[in-house]
């Protein structure tokens, strides 16, 4: 009996290491991982120089890791192990009721050269700096008689906190700081945390379960709140004015980070109106304007890919114009809005564009578009809207540089 057991143990082990060791060389290499949204290491160049400086060993280690057979099955098994050990999260992503996921840990910004990595906490000094920059911007724009509206979108963890055993004190503390600081300085700040929490608890689909963004319904809620803050409530388009097109099987960024296999996917909604084809999305590259989307707001190619949220306004662009081309053709002048934003605003634009021609600058892009008062002058914008997720407030300096 003992001998049989020993033979079985030996055979099992050898089968595993030789089986996967052989499969590794037989299975064709992949160059890209859609789940991780990154290029994979391919077989390195075997040169003496690369070997002596240690490059080959590092690349071979990455090559083995990246091209390992059934990699996603192993990642899924790891997730099962983590949840089986009652850890309630995987890779810093909380797993809550109804398959709700939320990133819990971030790399908090301390200075240009220093971050507090993988933490729930944020630097109060850095947050204060960001809020003070918004207050200073408000004062500058007021002098130019340009109204500013600030919308610091809550993170998924802030909104869906009730789905987890995780304490809410950090979310609540951050919200309290934002509210008291901005309202104390009389900045027109749209505060949506309690609204979103109530809607989410009531079962409304305002934030994705597997992505870090708000849903289109959430974006619509934000749009109505912004319009109300400007006193334009009578112009708000009712939700019934849109036909909802549903794009199933959407797995977002949070799902990718968690590496969980068994979470049901989200549905991405596109709210379409009959006159969407009036609008166009243009990108400025140097002195030239190029149509990123000829008609409407949606880049259809992304709807069949993993990164479906990028369908809104074709994903990341540093500077875009969203215009009513028919109005422009007729020489009709529309009010202009400068929208300084991160990706949360992309799904809001299809609503705002009904009221404004929009100059949209990306606060987290490669080009520095933080001098908003100058942009307002250059493009004759009558309003400024800053839309930024609280994650960017605590993990980057995109707001502290605004002026």
């Amino acid at each position, binding site marked *: *009996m*003992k*001998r049989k*057991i*020993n*033979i079985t*143990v*030996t055979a*099992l*082990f050898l089968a*595993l*290491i*030789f089986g996967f*060791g052989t499969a*590794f060389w037989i299975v064709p290499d992949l160059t890209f991982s859609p789940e*991780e*949204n*990154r290029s994979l290491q391919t077989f390195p160049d075997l040169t003496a120089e690369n*070997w*002596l400086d*240690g490059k080959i*060993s590092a690349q*071979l*280690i*990455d090559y*083995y*890791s990246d091209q*390992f057979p059934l*990699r996603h099955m*192993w*990642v899924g098994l*790891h997730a099962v*192990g983590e949840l089986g*050990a009652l*850890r*309630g*999260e995987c*890779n810093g992503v909380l797993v809550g009721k109804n398959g709700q996921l939320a990133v819990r840990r971030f790399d908090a910004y301390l200075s240009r050269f220093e971050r*507090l*990595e*993988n*933490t*729930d*906490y944020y630097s109060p000094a850095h947050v204060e700096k960001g809020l003070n920059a918004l207050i200073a911007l408000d004062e500058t724009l007021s002098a130019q008689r340009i109204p500013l509206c600030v919308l610091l979108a809550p993170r998924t963890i802030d909104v869906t906190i009730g789905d987890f*055993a*995780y*304490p809410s*004190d*950090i979310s609540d503390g951050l919200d309290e700081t934002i509210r008291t600081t901005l309202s104390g300085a009389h900045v027109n700040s749209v505060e949506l945390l309690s609204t979103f929490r109530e809607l989410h608890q009531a079962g409304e689909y305002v934030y994705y379960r597997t992505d*870090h963004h708000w849903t289109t319904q959430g974006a619509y809620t934000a749009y109505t709140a912004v319009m109300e803050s400007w006193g334009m409530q009578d112009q708000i388009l009712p939700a019934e004015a849109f036909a909802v097109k549903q794009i199933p099987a959407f797995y977002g*960024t949070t799902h990718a*980070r968690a*590496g969980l296999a068994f979470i049901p996917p989200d549905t991405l909604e596109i709210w379409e109106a009959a006159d969407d084809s009036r609008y166009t999305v243009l990108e400025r590259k140097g002195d030239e304007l190029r149509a990123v989307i000829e008609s409407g707001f949606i880049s259809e190619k992304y709807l069949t890919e993993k990164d479906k*949220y990028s369908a809104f306004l074709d*994903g*990341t662009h540093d500077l875009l114009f969203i215009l009513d081309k028919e109005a422009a053709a007729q020489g009709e002048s529309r009010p202009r809005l400068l929208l300084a934003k991160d*990706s949360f605003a992309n799904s809001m634009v299809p609503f705002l564009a009904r009221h404004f021609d929009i100059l949209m600058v990306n606060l*987290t*892009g490669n080009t520095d578009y933080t001098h908003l008062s100058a942009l307002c002058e250059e493009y004759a914008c009558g309003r400024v809207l800053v839309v930024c997720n609280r*994650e960017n407030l605590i993990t980057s300096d995109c707001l502290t540089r605004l002026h």
Partner: protein
Amino acid sequence: MVFSSTIFLFGFLPLSLLIYYVMPLKGRNLVLFLLSMAFYGFGEPTYILVMLFSITVAYLTGFPIGKYRESNPKRAKAWLILSVCLNLGMLLFFKYTNFFIENLALIPPLAEVLQPMEGLTLPIGISFYTFQILSYSIDLYRGSTDTQRSYISFGAYVALFPQLIAGPIVRYRDVDDQLITRRHSVDKFSSGVSRFTVGFAKKILLGDSLAAVYAYLGTVYTVEPTTLTAWLMVLCYTLHIYFDFSGYSDMAIGLGRMIGFEFLENFNYPYLASSITDFWRRWHVSLSSWFREYVYIPLGGNRKGLPRQFFNMGVVWLLTGFWHGASWNFVLWGVFYFIILALEKVFLLKWFDKNTATRTLGHIWALLLVGMGWMIFDHTTLSEAFSVIGGLFGIGTAGFASATVGYELLRALPLLAVSVIAATPFPAKLLAGLETSRPRWTVLRPVLIGFALLLSVAYMVSGTFSPFLYFIF
């Protein structure tokens, strides 16, 4: 290359086993020597020369040491001193040069003259293989072993890949006969697989998971230092370092068995220690034994009166601390243990042995001090170490606990519970008991090994899963 990597487990290991077992018995030491060189050269190509130099020095000096040890001990001693100086010199040069330069440069007149040597990095495993090489030269001089005439066999002993980079420190005389003949069998191979899997699971499932919790708590402590965070940090690191290091030793012992070697044990449930003296008989046994045999006893051990014994202990613990790293925290860590061991020697050991209550106090004393010691060990900045140690007693903290750390404790509780149990002999005894009393239950062994292996591979592969979330724009 570390054992807990896909390239080792599914690349280097199957290839090595295949070549090793295809090769006739006579050529296996050559295979081991070449494979070990490839293993070492994979990450440290230029430092192969450093290791070959050390091997060659000890190999060549071995001949005159062996020849003259009886007929002309003085001459043999001179050759021994040459071997020790050259080998220790390599260790001192690579490991400690910049440490000495940086500290001497603190003296104003020397600050401009002394500059740290750029590009001087520590060859992996040099602390381990240097001690192995020294054990050969010294034992040969003492007559405890014979001259190794085969360069290949001696090279295979020094560079043997299972224990090359993290020990255990195998004394030459413990494996000299195995270098000539060793038994290979399915039973031994299977026992090696079991031991390797246990080590692999200890390292990956427990050690690495505890390290992640510890790293997180370390960040938390810089923002919101609480007493609970300090205690959790100490607990997590204490368990992490045990599973990480003993797991690696288990893997080394297991791999050794797969190729016919038997290495001595390196750990014996150290956290069951009844005192610090007992702890050091159970923790990294191969290092403690090495220092006892090659430093403490030659200095006179406890045979020359108490003051001299304390001096000898002081030397050993200063060296032990310094061996772990070229940094003041390791020196302090060594001194910390010297003071405690001296106190135990003077009166505490006798007191601990009085009755059950004092024996229990001895356990608590050992665990508490070992935990605090690990904080000194882990923090190269001493103020950070003392901040955590002070935090254990509420000094400098912002309260007892925060909601977030309370949550983290609940989340880590199952991991901590399993780790605490796994740090005792209970699981091994339970399995052994079952296999003895109910032989049928032996079928559980391959199931458990298969499960542990698959789950550990999953955790290992998942560690390299790194989503690039550029689209969080």
